[in-house]
Each structure stands twice: as C-alpha cells, then as structure tokens.
C-alpha cells in the first residue's frame, strides 16, 4: 500500500524539473529529488575538503553539507547575492545543498524532447548531464543528480575502512 503511494507521488513529479541559472546557462534538476529551496545563509567552513564543498549549514537542527555548483562545474567563484539560493536535494536518503546563482521555475519537460548529451564535455568534467532539452527556444541542461554527486558519494557505497 505504501509502495503504490510513493509511486503515485513520484508519478506526479516525473517530468517536472526545477530550472536554475548559472551565468547565462539554464540547468534543471528533477523535481522528485528536490526537497526545498532556501536563501543563502552562513556556511560553516570545513577544512580539508575540495573547494567546491563550501561546508555545512544548520537546516532546522539538521547538519546539511553544501556544495557550490559553479565551483563544481569549474566556473569562477562569484559573490553571493540576494538571488543566490541553496537547493536542498535528497540523494541516497541524505540531504545535500547545492548553491545556484538563481532559481528560475518549475517546468514540465517531455522525455521525447530530450537529446542525449555529447559524450564528453571537458568543461563539465565527467559529464553530470542526463540530457539536453529545449524550452521556449532556450536550451536546458538536465543534470543527473546521481552522476552529479558520484565523486562525493562513491565512498558511501563502498564498505567502511
């Protein structure tokens, strides 16, 4: 019974994407991975981690790691402004926040309109892209959340020690 419920919710969200901008490019995250969007807040720096991991925040008593999409994509760091948002994403039962320049909107994208990404795009490192769509004449890069965190999460899948 629970299963069908979950499925129903997921069905509702599949095909729905949250789009956000970084510089002039529009990216999207599948909505069923998005928990919430919060404004930028003080991030506690953690030493000895890659520069794109900005640190941790306190999200209502929960410690949530924050990673900066710009830096992860190898783009230049940019001062945070009032448009800067943290998108809290759920992956592997874990909340992770990603910093984006600006959240745009929630859109429906048809699977049939998605083109596979070019095989390797050096600028994006190991491609994080699931596919590329067009929406109102604009190109939307659909991010594959699992691929996006692959490098950070690989350790979690391997056994301890």
């Amino acid at each position, binding site marked *: 019974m629970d299963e069908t419920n979950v499925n129903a919710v997921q069905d509702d969200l599949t095909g729905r994407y949250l789009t956000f901008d970084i510089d002039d490019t529009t990216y999207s995250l599948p909505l069923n991975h998005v928990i919430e969007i919060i404004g930028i807040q003080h991030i*506690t*720096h*953690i030493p*000895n981690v890659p520069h794109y991991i900005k640190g941790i925040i306190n999200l209502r008593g929960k410690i949530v790691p924050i990673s900066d999409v710009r830096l992860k994509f190898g783009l230049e760091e940019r001062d945070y402004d009032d448009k800067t948002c943290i998108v809290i994403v759920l992956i592997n039962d*874990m909340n*992770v926040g990603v910093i984006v320049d600006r959240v745009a909107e929630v859109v429906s994208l048809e699977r049939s309109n998605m083109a596979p990404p070019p095989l390797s795009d050096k600028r994006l490192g190991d491609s994080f892209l699931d596919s590329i769509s067009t929406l109102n004449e604009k190109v939307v890069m659909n991010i594959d959340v699992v691929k996006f965190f692959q490098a950070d999460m690989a350790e979690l899948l391997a056994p*301890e020690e």
Partner: protein
Amino acid sequence: MSAIDPGMEALLETFIYESNTMLEQLDEILLESERAQNINQENIDSIFRIMHTVKGSSAMMGFSAISGLGHAVEDVFFILREDANKLGPVFSSLFDLVFQSSDFLKREIERVSDPNYEEGDPSDMVRQLHGLAAVMKGEAPPPAAPAAAGAEAPAAGPSYEGFRRIRIHFEDECQMENMRAFMILNQLANCCDEIDSVPPHPESDATLCADIIRNGFLIICKPTDNLDDVIKIIESSLNIKSYELLSEDDDGSPPAAEATDAQAPAPAGEGAAALPAAGAVQAAAKAPAAAAAAGGSGARQNLISVNQIKLDALMDLVGEIVTAESMVASNPDLRGLKLDNFTKSTRELRKLTDELQDVVMSIRMVPLTGTFQKMNRIVRDMTKSLGKKVDLVTYGGDTEVDKTINDTIGDPFMHMIRNSIDHAIEPPEVRMSLGKPETGQVTINARNAGGEILIDVSDDGSGLDVDRILAKARNNGMLTKPESEYTDKEIFNLIMLPGFSTNTEVTEYSGRGVGMDVVKKNLEKVGGAVSISSEKNKGTTFTIKIPLTLAIVDGMNISVGDTTFTLPITSIKQSFKITDPKQVLHDTDGAEMILLRGDCYPVVRLHEHFMISTEKTDVMDGIMIQVESGNSIACLFADELLGEYQVVVKPFPSFFNKYNLKELGLSGCSILGDGSICLILDANSLVSNL
C-alpha cells in the same frame, strides 16, 4: 520458513530480547555448574525452564530449527530432573553439547530478524542430544515422559479406563491457537497422570491452528486426583471461549459443562500464579507467551524494555531542547533589555532541561555486568581448547555506561582477553616451574573516575617481551626512530599498530595481527583510549579509558577566524596568554614549541592546521590552550576563548566520510544557541598527529 508471518513481526523483538536474556542466563548457569563440576537440582530446573520457554516461544514464532534443538536439550534435562545421578558419566560431553547448542541458538536468534533468514540445521546436535538422552536413560528407556513427548509419540487411545475427554474451543481470532493449546496441555500435565491430545503436539506445527479452530482441541487425560483440578486450570486459562466434557463410556457422566469463560479478568501474570502448585515450568512457559500474546509485560513488573531507537530519538530530542533553550535564553533580540522575570523563567527552564538531560542519560546507562559475563564464556572455551587454567575475576560490574558504549566495548574486551589467555598466560607446567599458582588469573576491574570510566584488564602472565616486540616491529618496518630511543611505554604501544602480532603462529583465537589494532579503533570510535603497562613475568595491564556518555559534551568554545571550535573541557589542562615572544622556541625544522615550567610542548596553530584565515597570527595576540590526551600534551593556539558551553555532539554527515575529518582532529559538529555551527575538536587526534 524464510519470512516471518506479518502478524508476528511485532512479537519478534520481544522474542529476540527474551531469548537472548535467557540464553545468557543459561550460559551463566552452565559455567557455574561446570566450574563446580556438579549441577544442583535448582540449576537443572532453571535450564529445563529456559529451554522449555525458548522452545515454546520459538515454535510460536515458527522457527522450527530453534524449537527443535530447544526441545532436544529440554529432553535431556527432563531426564536429569527426574534423576540427577544420571548425569555422572556424560557430564563433560553433555556440557560441551549444551554449550554448542546455546551457541547455535544464539546464532539463529541473531539472524531471525534478517528478512532473508534461512534456518540453520541443528539436526547433528539434536541427534547427539538424543544419543545422550538414550545413554542416560539406560538400555531400556522408561516410558515416554509426558513433557518430553516430542520424540516418541505415545499411541493415543481414547478408550483407556479413567480417561476423560475435554474439548476446548478458543475465542475467535485469539491467534496462535496451537500454542495456547500447548500451554494448557503443559499446565494439565501437573495434575494428570497421563495426558494426550488431538491433534497431538500442537506446538510443533503452526498450521494446526486452522484445525484447532475448526474442530476444537481435544484433551484426553487421566486426572491424578479428580477432574475438578483439570477443570479449574482450563477455566483459568486465557482466551477460552468454551469447553465441554465429552462423556462416553463412564459412570455418572457429568453434564456437559458449557462455560463461557469471558475474557479472563486476571492479567496474564496472575493467570500463571493462580495455577494450583504452579510448577516453575508452567509459570515460566506461560508468562512470556502470555505477555507476548497480550503485547505487554506482566502487570506487576516495574521494568520495561524499550526499543533503543526510541531512546536514541529521545536523546536527540533532548539535545534539540537544550539547544533551543539556549537559543531562547540568549536570543539576540533580547540584547540590552532588562528582563528580570524573563531571566528568572529561563533560569527555571534551564534547571529543568538539565534535569531532563540527566534523567535521559541515566535511562541509557547499562551496567557492564552483561559484557563481563560474556567474557566468562570466552575464558571457558579458550582454556578448554588451549589446555591452560585461567580464572576470570571481575570487579565493578555494576559500573554503568551508555548503551552505545557498552555495545562497542564488547569486541575490544573479547580481543584483550583472548590475547591475555593465548599469549600471556603460560601453560600450567610453565607456571608451576616459575613458582606461580597453577591457575592463571585475568582480572577485569571497572571503576568510575570523574566523567570517565576506567577499566583495567590485567593478567598475571608472562608480561610483554620488550625485545621481541622491538624485533618484530623492526622486521615489519614499523619503527620510526632509532631503537635505543624507544621508552618501554612506546614499545608497548607498538602492539596496537595495525598488522602487529607477536604470536608467530596464527591460532584459532588470536594472532592474525588485527587484535589490538581493532581494540584501539573500536575504543576510539567511542572516544576511549588504551594504555598498557607490563612487567616481565608479573603480567600485563591494559587500562581503558572511556567517556561515560557520548552525546552531550561540556566544552570550551574557542574562535579561530570566523570559525568556532568546541574543545571538550576534559582535555583542557589550562589556558594562558603568551606575554613574552621568547617563550616560543623553534626546533631545527622550524616547528614551534613552548617552554612551560621546564617542560617543552609542541604548539599547534589551529588556523594553520585547519587553513583558516585570521588576523591573529602573532602568538602575543591569541591564546594558548594546553591540552592533554593520553600521554601526550600539546598547546593549541587560537584567537580567543568564547566561554564554556554544553554542546550536543552530532556526527558529520556521511557525505564527509571520505575526507577523514576525524584524523584531522574534528570529532563532529554541534549547533550553538544562536543556530550557528561549531566544530568539535578531538584533542586525541590533534595531539597524536604531531
């Protein structure tokens, strides 16, 4: 069966808990009896009772491997109960077998909650037990005992003289009809000379439920005194809708009694107590089953068992409240306001949250006795197979530690005791020739010391051989400085390095070189530390230091740049300002040291260590904090002290697992009253990394 009946899932926890408790009790009795080389009537009864209950409840859960083996052990002890003298010739083989069985049962019970649980095969042990039983019974086994019925099914003949037949119907949907029937049968065994039922052995097969529901449960018995006793027991049993006496061939044929025994008003415990001459067996067998069936424990019990997940949740919640409380009390909106009444109320609130915290902590505390008792078993097995004589003496088993800690230290203890017996304690002949008592001694001594627990594990064995350890470390390339510079203490610590094992031969129990390494790792996981002292031919003592609790730490908050760190108060020795830059010395590598009362300590600049930018880089501007961990002392340099706080330790999200923050000197993080996050420093790894 591979999956558990969904209706049973709720009972599973109770089953596992109860069975484990009883099996531990069983081990204890066995050890005690084996040591005394004798078993008294009381212990035979207890073992019988334990196996009986385990059998009954596992059959109820549908675990036939467990119940089958339980049954076999029960059979053996049933014979002993009748005549304890039969034990003599089979004493040691019986004990070994029962120990094996107990291990098997424990293993199975550990696994039953696994959704892919496949039952193990106890048939070998069952066969051996039956063999033993046959030996004990002598060449001509006496007629099958009623309670040991499982093995030899008595031919049910309903037409014996003096037999009465009673048909029982259980309440609709009372569930587990077969077990209920079995319970009644058991109780009746007390007041009947002979007893049988249709279907026979209802406990053996859960599918009989349907049959019992449809046809009722027929009891055929021959009352010892009169039928009234039997009727009384049936009437006092739970969940019986009706019963009838089937008159057939006999005298005054009492009218078929149709009694509607509505919900027995007595609580489960009382039902058992009301039995005439309630044999311990019945009481024990009935109580757990009834408790499980009723989904609660006995009415007069003051103890309840709680799922640990709930306790963890409670603990988290208290942590949140402590944080929220300081958020309110030191809210920035209140700054500069004079609020007498508010301050008074917050002080009251503070007092209550402190109390709440103490109570929750105390709930989580468990005595070490259980862990110690498990060690008895290890000592017993090892001495037997290694041919050594060792006594385990424990002190301070009533010392209490947090449940999580208690669970973590079991393995380290086991390793240490194994090491002691395997490596340290000499064989009896050698001991005699050294003028030591033939029987070696391993002592565990636990005591409270401030916010910590100290546990000594000592033996009176050969002591650590400094030369051999050095040689071994040399061979394994573990030495980091010239041998002559090693102090004894440092040499002892070498044995806790990964991959070090002094025993040249790998034995069944130790010697794979993982032992002490694991000990150290496990203890560090809960914030503990080990130190070793040893004297040749006198023995070795491992002293373990573990914190009382994990969750809430009294800490000193210090700032470095815009990062706040919390340093546990227990590791701080003192803090001071440097007044003269000459106090700080540099060694040839340029590493900083500080001279304090004639002793030199290394300096760790936190801003450099954690690569944080701060303006206070001159030693004169900031503050020095002298910290101690284990045997080493160092001074940390920070910007300033922010004051003392109680912080709730939260682990870093698993996202950071790969970055080894722990080794860097961070043990976790915490949320401060103003909602900001501080990082908790681990003096232990900060200092040991120098």
